[in-house]
């Protein structure tokens, strides 16, 4: 689709350095994966570039202090997320000296790949296109796979956003030097830069810089057509290769990085500088729309003030672009690594959504859908809460780009329905896992009670026999003999039961006595489950606090993308038995 691009609003001025803020709020979770673990406490003094949150686990990234100052708190604060919820943040009162840690270039050529990956992780580098996937994982060829093409994503297809545009215009050489490192680490012979043709200045600057590189890199302009900047879309547009459903572009030999990520890598390696700032477009209904190089943790309120402040009759703020962004709940929330744009709204630029009419199945959404889905069918099933059917119509291939809602003549908020359906499905899967675990626990509990009873009976029986044998010496007791007989019978029963169980080999299952049709169904469900997990999507659903993917993505999807794990319909027989 071709939404009005509105980019010229913020391209008139160069990138400006944001002035220091008195206070920075740095969330520990700014990336996909596990949150960083705080290394500082209230009262600690930190320097610019000092690691204040350590990466935990493989899919994680470190977090650093944006300036020097005193940590005043490590506590939950509002973060820019559609939920408007708070998350754990390190609050730093800046001392104004902006004193930096000692930083040294990373001699990446001499490092083993794993060591380098660790360094990149500890420098906090994540995908800056919006998906904020930890970059170190993407820098090495996937095990057993080969990357023949590296794509730098400079498409920037969302309206209003110009941070990548300006970065490419002004810092093309650094971007391509970063890309050169990626190219060597990945061993990819081909390097392509994809730029939409509405950014001729950026394309020209990048093409010129490309000639100065010591490796072959080609700048390709692609037609301006939202959402060309989606990782899978750009991959197809530049190479003709289609990323399989639920897979990654690496499955077709392509790795995609945002241009800002390449720039971040260059700064990280050449100067040893951790990711503590990024370029952000501040635009919309503000006095002087402009791009700023902003420290991570800057309160968004300060950012809007930098652009001259909001004009009268502003009606809120968007984080990200108008197609995939979200409403900012609290201006005190800080800039995080995923924020590429802040748009101040007014009623003229962003009119209130028109009331929704019934779907007339006109099919405009299907023609607009870049995933080639049938959005009106998904809408129908999501609305009817028929989530099984929604999945059968490939709900999880939806990238939530918003094209369907954009073209819908009935003004139906289609994407909201898909988000709802996806989260319902994830929730049900979690509930099912929980109930499965509970059932197993219960079955084991019953088994254990039974076993204890048997052991007790055996022990008692043995004791009785011993005593009886003693008694036999002392003289026959008819009462004791009767008890002994009862006990022996009980032992025999218990042993028989135990033997039967051993013969069955396992706990009785409720799937044992099924009709052939039911068995087939079970087999199909198992196959589907196996397929889903082998598809690599055992990834958990994003926590509500995970950074929201706004704008273009790098090639690795947020967990929302992909095949999804099919839910099963409850087996009526299984429930009855």
């Amino acid at each position: 689709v071709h939404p009005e691009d509105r980019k010229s609003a913020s391209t008139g001025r160069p990138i400006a350095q944001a002035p220091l803020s008195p206070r920075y709020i740095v969330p520990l979770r700014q990336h996909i994966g596990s949150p960083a673990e705080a290394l500082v406490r209230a009262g600690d003094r930190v320097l610019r570039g000092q690691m204040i949150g350590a990466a935990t686990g493989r899919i994680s990234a470190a977090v650093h202090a944006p300036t020097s100052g005193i940590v005043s708190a490590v506590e939950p604060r509002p973060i820019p997320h559609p939920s408007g919820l708070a998350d754990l943040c390190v609050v730093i009162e800046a001392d104004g000296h902006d004193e930096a840690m000692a930083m040294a270039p990373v001699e990446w050529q001499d490092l083993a790949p794993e060591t380098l990956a660790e360094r990149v992780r500890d420098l906090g580098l994540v995908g800056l296109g919006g998906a904020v996937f930890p970059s170190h994982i993407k820098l090495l060829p996937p095990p057993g796979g080969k990357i023949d093409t590296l794509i730098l994503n400079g498409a920037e297809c969302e309206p209003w956003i110009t941070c990548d545009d300006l970065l490419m215009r002004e810092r093309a050489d650094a971007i391509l030097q970063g890309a050169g490192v990626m190219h060597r680490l990945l061993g990819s012979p081909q390097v392509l830069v994809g730029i939409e043709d509405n950014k001729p200045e950026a394309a020209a600057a990048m093409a010129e810089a490309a000639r100065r590189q010591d490796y072959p890199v080609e700048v390709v302009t692609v037609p301006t057509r939202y959402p060309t900047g989606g990782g899978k879309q750009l991959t197809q547009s530049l190479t003709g290769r289609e990323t399989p459903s639920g897979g990654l572009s690496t499955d077709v030999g392509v790795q995609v990085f945002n241009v800002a990520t390449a720039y971040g890598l260059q700064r990280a390696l050449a100067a040893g500088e951790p990711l503590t700032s990024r370029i952000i477009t501040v635009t919309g209904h503000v006095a002087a729309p402009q791009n700023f190089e902003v420290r991570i943790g800057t309160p968004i309120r300060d950012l809007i003030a930098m652009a001259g402040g909001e004009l009268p009759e502003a009606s809120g703020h968007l984080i990200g672009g108008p197609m995939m962004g979200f409403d900012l709940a609290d201006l005190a929330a800080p800039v995080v690594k995923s924020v590429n744009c802040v748009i101040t709204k007014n009623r003229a630029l962003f009119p209130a959504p028109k009331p929704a009419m019934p779907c007339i199945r006109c099919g405009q959404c299907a023609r607009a859908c870049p995933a080639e889905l049938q959005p009106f069918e998904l809408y129908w099933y999501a609305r009817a809460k028929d989530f099984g059917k929604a999945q059968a119509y490939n709900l999880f291939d939806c990238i939530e780009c918003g094209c369907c809602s954009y073209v819908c003549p009935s003004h139906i908020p289609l994407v909201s329905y898909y988000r709802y359906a996806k989260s319902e499905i994830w929730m049900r899967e979690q509930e099912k896992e929980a109930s499965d675990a509970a059932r197993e626990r219960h079955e084991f509990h019953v088994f254990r009670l039974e076993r204890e009873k048997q052991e007790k009976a055996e022990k008692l029986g043995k004791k009785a026999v011993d005593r009886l044998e003693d008694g036999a010496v002392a003289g026959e007791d008819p009462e004791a003999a009767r008890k002994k007989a009862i006990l022996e019978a009980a032992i025999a029963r218990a042993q028989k039961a135990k033997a039967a169980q051993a013969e069955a080999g396992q706990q009785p299952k409720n799937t044992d006595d099924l009709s052939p049709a039911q068995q087939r169904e079970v087999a199909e469900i198992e196959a589907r489950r196996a397929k889903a997990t082998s598809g690599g999507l055992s990834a958990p659903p994003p926590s509500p606090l995970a950074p929201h993917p706004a704008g273009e993505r790098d090639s690795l999807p947020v967990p929302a993308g992909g095949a999804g794990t099919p839910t099963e319909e409850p087996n009526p027989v299984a429930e009855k038995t």
Partner: protein
Amino acid sequence: MIGSPFVARENNSVRITMLKVLAALVPGVIAHAWFFGPGIWVSLLVASAFALAFEALALVMRQYPLKPFLGDGSALVTAWLFALTVPTLAPWWLYATGMLFAILVAKHLYGGLGQNPFNPAMVGYAVLIISFPMAMTQWPGPIGLVAHTPDLAEAFDIVFAGAGAISPDAYTSASPLDALRTQLHAGKSLVEAMPDRHLGYLAGFDGEMVALMFLLGGLALLANRQITWHVPVAFLAGVILTAGGLQLWDPEHHIGPAFHLLSGGVMLGAFFIATDPVSGCTTPLGKLIFAGTAGFLTILIRTYGGFPDGVAFAILLMNTAAPFIDAYTQPRVFGHGGGGHMDDMKS
């Protein structure tokens, strides 16, 4: 709170979609008025009035807001398509009955806008052709070829008070399609049965011009991306191939595709009725199957059936099959191999 996207395409609504369909019908309507007299305006007006009245009644009974739904234009599209398929200058109660079944039964009893499994205008038409077959064949003849063409005032009189002083014989004539069919059914050969062609090229000059104007309007809808090529092309191909096949098989008793294309409701059906997305197919392959079969059935019903035209029944029959066809023609989704995704379909 409503999530992204926060922008929407401008000048885009159900109302505008419906108004575009109405606008695309205008050339055909004007041609109709030009060649057959101004009575068509009365037909459109009366059908529209009844459609809106029944729509309002249904909305009130269902406790829906009147303004957005009455203003969405869908009842008017139904009314116009209906008025263009039933004889002009039919008595008012014919329009009332047709619209009652179209709007109240076919549309609102099934859930209203977007929910109807059958095309409402065609349901109205089908009810009338079964209930009042005589009234449904009295078409006003072309100007100059009938004794009298009623003016606007006379047209109102005829619709509301009956023909009165003017005899229906004075202004009606059998349509070329109906005349030919009757003759052929009586066992005559094509040469004997050929109706007076009213100096037309194939199906009567006047009717041909109207059909071509509907074609023009349909092409405009296509150019404006309101419809895709699949339905019209497949529908017309179904008509051409079936009629052509029958003519090859027995040329003496079957007229060729060109006559069928330009007579009766074929053009209207191909571009305006079979393209109804609510009651038709929505997948590209499904549209081809749906419309191709409808075109085939149209000729079959025209040739062997007992009704003057086959378009309405052909489309209604295919309406019943549309959900089934859609379910089995789901297009391949991005990232899913060549086999489509039906293998994933469960339950």
